[in-house]
C-alpha cells in the first residue's frame, strides 16, 4: 500500500487545497444548476419589471431631480444588482453552510481528507463567489435588455457587485458555521437583510431619510455596494473617485475580515 503522493501542505499549497474543496461544490452544482438558473433570471426580470416600469412610470411623472435626473429604472437597476448580490450571498452562505454540518454533512466528509478547516471554508467561499458572479451577470444582462444602463463604466459595476456579495458571504459563512439552530437564520433575514434591502438607498435616495437614519444607512455595507454600482451604471463615478475608493475599501475590509474569521470559526467548529 503506497501512500498517496502528497507533501505537507505549505502556505503555497493553500490555494490548491481550497480548490479541491471548491471542485466538490462544482460537482454538486452540476446536478442542480438548471433549477437555480431559473430563479437567477426570473428574480431580476420581476424586480426590474415591477419597479422600473411599474413603479417607475409613476415616479417619472414627477421630477426625478432627487434621483440625479435619471429615470427611476436607471436609478433602481444598479441597486437591484447590489442587493441581489447580497441576497445570493445570504442564501449561499447560510443554509448551505449549516446543512454541510447538519444535513448532508459534507464538511465532515471533507474533514477526514487532507483538507483543513480553512481549506474547506475557502473552497466553499469560492463557490459562493462563483454563484454571486453568475447571478450578478444575469442581473446585468437583464438591465442591459431593459435599457437600464447609462454608461460604459458599467463594466466596473460587475466586480463592484461581486465584491458587495463577498462582503456579505465571508462574514455570514464565518458566523453560520457556529449556528446551532436554523431559526437563527430567519432572524438575520428578517431583521438584518430586509431592512438593509429597504433602507440602503436601494429604492429611494437616502436624502429622503431623516438625518439620524441616514448616518445609520451610511454605516451599512449594502449602501456602499449600491452607491458603487449606481455610480458605475450611471457613469457618475468619475466625479468622486475618492468616494469610490472608500466604498471599495469598506467592502473589501468586510470580505477580508470575514475570510480571516471564517478560517478560525471553521477550525473551532470542526476540530473539537
Amino acid at each position: 500500500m503506497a501512500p498517496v503522493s502528497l507533501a505537507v501542505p505549505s502556505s503555497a499549497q493553500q490555494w490548491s487545497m481550497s480548490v479541491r474543496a471548491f471542485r466538490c461544490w462544482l460537482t454538486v452544482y452540476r446536478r442542480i444548476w438548471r433549477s437555480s438558473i431559473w430563479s437567477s433570471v426570473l428574480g431580476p426580470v420581476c424586480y426590474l419589471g415591477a419597479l422600473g416600469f411599474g413603479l417607475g412610470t409613476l415616479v417619472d411623472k414627477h421630477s426625478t431631480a432627487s434621483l440625479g435626473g435619471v429615470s427611476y429604472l436607471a436609478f433602481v437597476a444598479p441597486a437591484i444588482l447590489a442587493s441581489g448580490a447580497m441576497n445570493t450571498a445570504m442564501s449561499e452562505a447560510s443554509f448551505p453552510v449549516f446543512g454541510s454540518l447538519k444535513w448532508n454533512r459534507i464538511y465532515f466528509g471533507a474533514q477526514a481528507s487532507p483538507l483543513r478547516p480553512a481549506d474547506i471554508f475557502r473552497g466553499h467561499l469560492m463557490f459562493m463567489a462563483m454563484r454571486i458572479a453568475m447571478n450578478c451577470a444575469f442581473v446585468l444582462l437583464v438591465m442591459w435588455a431593459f435599457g437600464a444602463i447609462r454608461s460604459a463604466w458599467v463594466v466596473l459595476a460587475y466586480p463592484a457587485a461581486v465584491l458587495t456579495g463577498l462582503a456579505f458571504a465571508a462574514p455570514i459563512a464565518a458566523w453560520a458555521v457556529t449556528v446551532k439552530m436554523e431559526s437563527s437564520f430567519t432572524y438575520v433575514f428578517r431583521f438584518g437583510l430586509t431592512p438593509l434591502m429597504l433602507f440602503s438607498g436601494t429604492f429611494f435616495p437616502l436624502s429622503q431619510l431623516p438625518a439620524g437614519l441616514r448616518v445609520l444607512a451610511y454605516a451599512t455595507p449594502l449602501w456602499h455596494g449600491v452607491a458603487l454600482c449606481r455610480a458605475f451604471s450611471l457613469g457618475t463615478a468619475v466625479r468622486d473617485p475618492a468616494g469610490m475608493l472608500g466604498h471599495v475599501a469598506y467592502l473589501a475590509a468586510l470580505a477580508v475580515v470575514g475570510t480571516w474569521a471564517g478560517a478560525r470559526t471553521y477550525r473551532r467548529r470542526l476540530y473539537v
Partner: protein
Amino acid sequence: MLERSEPEVLVRARGLTKTFGSFTAVDGIDFDLYRGEAFGFLGPNGAGKSSTMRMIGCVSPPTSGELSILGRDPVRDGSAIRARLGVVPQDDTLDMELTVRENLLVYGRYFGLPRRVIRERTAELLEFVQLADRANSKVDPLSGGLKRRLTIARSLINEPEILILDEPTTGLDPQARHVVWDRLFRLKQRGVTLILTTHYMDEAEQLCDRLVVMDHGRFAAEGSPRSLIARYCSPEVLELRFDPQLHEAAADKLKDFPAERSEVLADRILLYVADGDEVLAAVHASGLEPLTSLVRRGTLEDVFLRLTGRRLED
C-alpha cells in the same frame, strides 16, 4: 517486509487525554497499534471510543498526553497524516444528491488524485464492495448496508495504510453486517491496519486480533478476544429466566450454588460455571423451576459485565 520480529508501531499513545469542559471523555490511556493488525475499542456508548477515534483521525486535538500517528504529530502534521488514513465515520457522510461514482470522484479529489487514478480505483473499489452495478445510481435510495459499503469504498480511495472504523455495522441488519465483516476481513488480509470501535461483542470477536475494553475513558482490560474471555470469564455460562414474581427469590437461593460468580440482571440470572449442564441439573434438583435455561460459552459481553458491572448495549 521489514523487521518481521519487531512489528512497526503505527499509532502510539501515552497518557492520552481528551476533556470537554469539566467532562473527561478519554482519561490518560496508553496504547501501541501495530502495522497489519486489527485493533478494537469495545465499550458502551459514552465510553470515550469515538473521542479516541477522532484524535487518531487528526480532527480532534488531544487535551494532553502524547499521540503519534505514522510517526508524526497529529496537530502539526494532521493534513499529511490524514492523506494516509481512511475513515469510516459512525454516521455516513455521503453526498445523497450525487451518484455512487460521483461520491468517489469528489472524495478522490479531496486527496488531490488525478482523474485517471480516481477512475481506475473507483472501478476496483466498487467491485470490491460489490456495488459495481450501482455505480450510476444516486446514493439516497440505497439501503443502509449499501451506503455503508459505499462509505468503506470511499474511505479506501487514497489506498490508506490505516483504516479507522467507528461502529462500522451499527444499525445494519444481520445479513448486511456479515457482508461488511467479510470485506473488512479481506482488507486485513491485504495488510491494511484496522482500528475499529464497536459495542457488538460478536463484531469484536470476528474482526479484532487485539482489543481493549473501554469504560469511562479508561481501559478496563486489554488482550485478544480469546485471552480476555479466558481471563475474565468462566468456560460456560448458565442463563436462567424465571417468572418475574419469583425472580428475586430465585436469585437469593442461587447464591448458595457453586458458581465462580453470578450476575442478576433485570430479566435473567447468569451463573458463571465450569460445567453448565451439571449446574442446571442441580438447579432443577433444588426445586427451582426456571422458565427458560441456556448453557453457552463465555463471551466478551460477559467480560464486559464482569469488568464494568454493566451490559454493553445499555
